[in-house]
C-alpha cells in the first residue's frame, strides 16, 4: 500500500531521535537520561520499520527483524542501567548526574 510517504516516516523518526538526544544530553536527572536513550532507540526502530516498505523481498524483512533485536537489547540495557542507578543513588543519595563527575578520578 502506498498511502504513507516513506520520507515522512523518516522525518518523524529523525525528529523523535532529535528529541531523544535533547532529553538525554540536556537533562540533569539521570532517569531522564535513560528515558532519552529509550526514546532514541524507539526512533531507530521506527526508522527501520519505515525502511522495510522501501525494499523488496528479503531486504524488506530486515526492517522487521532488526526492531525485534533492538527491543531485546533495549530491555537488557534498561535492566542493567537501572541496577546501576540503584547502586549509585545508594551511594550519593542524589539523582543529579553532575554529582557523579568526581567518580571519574
Amino acid at each position: 500500500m502506498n498511502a504513507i510517504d516513506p520520507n515522512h516516516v523518516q522525518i518523524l523518526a529523525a525528529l523523535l531521535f532529535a528529541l531523544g538526544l535533547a532529553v538525554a544530553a540536556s537533562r540533569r536527572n539521570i532517569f531522564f537520561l535513560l528515558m532519552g536513550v529509550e526514546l532514541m532507540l524507539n526512533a531507530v526502530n521506527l526508522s527501520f520499520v519505515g525502511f522495510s516498505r522501501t525494499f523488496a523481498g528479503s531486504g524488506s524483512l530486515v526492517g522487521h527483524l532488526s526492531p525485534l533485536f533492538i527491543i531485546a537489547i533495549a530491555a537488557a540495557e534498561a535492566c542493567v542501567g537501572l541496577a546501576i542507578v540503584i547502586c549509585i543513588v545508594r551511594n550519593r543519595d542524589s539523582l543529579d548526574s553532575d554529582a557523579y563527575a568526581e567518580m571519574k578520578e
Partner: protein
Amino acid sequence: MFPDLNQSLGTIYFGLFAVIALLCGAGLLVARHPIKGAICLIGVMLSLSGLYAILHSPFIAVLQVLVYAGAIMMLLVFVIMVLNQGEDHAVPRFDRSSVLALVLPVLVGALVVATLKRVPLVNDAGATRGTIQRISEAMFTVGPASPGYYLLFEIGGLLLLAALVSAVLLAKRSLDRRAEEPDGTPANGAMPHAHPGHADRGPAVVSLHDQAAAGSTTVTAAGAVDVSTRAH
C-alpha cells in the same frame, strides 16, 4: 491482520500517531517529575506501536506494546517509585550546558532532511508484510540460501540472561552486612536512606566481595533472586 486502508485514511492515521508521539516527546523533554516523564514515554511508545501497525509490521507492533511499553517501562516506573524520588526541585531542568546539548538535535534533523531531499525514498511494491509467519521463516530457516537469524536469537537470549544476572548482582546489598546489622533494621534488604557517615563501601566493591564470598553464580543467583524480589 489489519484491513488495507485507502490513501487518505492512512495519512490521517499517520498524522494522528505522529502528533501524539511528538507531543509526548516534548512532554518528556519538559517534565519535572520523573513519573510524568515516564508516562510521556509510554505514550510515545504506544503511538509508535500504532505506527508500526499501519506500516505493515504487526508483529513488531504487538511486541512493542508487550515488551517495551509493558515490561521495560514498568521496570523504569518501579525503580522511580522505589527510589522515592518525587519532584526534584533542587536540580534545575536545564542549565547552561544544555544549550550545547540542543545543538545536536538540530544538526541531526538538518542532516536527515537534507539527505532525504536529495535522495527521496520510494515505496517498493514488493515489500513484504511483517507477519509472524514471514518473520519466523526468515529467522529460523537455516539453509545455504539464507543462514537465518537463529544464532543471533540464541545470543540475544544469552545476553538477556547476562543482563539479568548482572543487574541482580549490582543492585543487591552484601549478605554479610545484612546479617550483621544489630539494630534490627528489617533484614529484607529494604532500602534505607544512605547515611553519609556510614562506612559504606562502594556498591561495586560490595558486589565483588559478594561474588567472591558466595562462590558459584548459581548459588548467588538463587540467593540474589530472593533478595531482589524482596527489594522490589
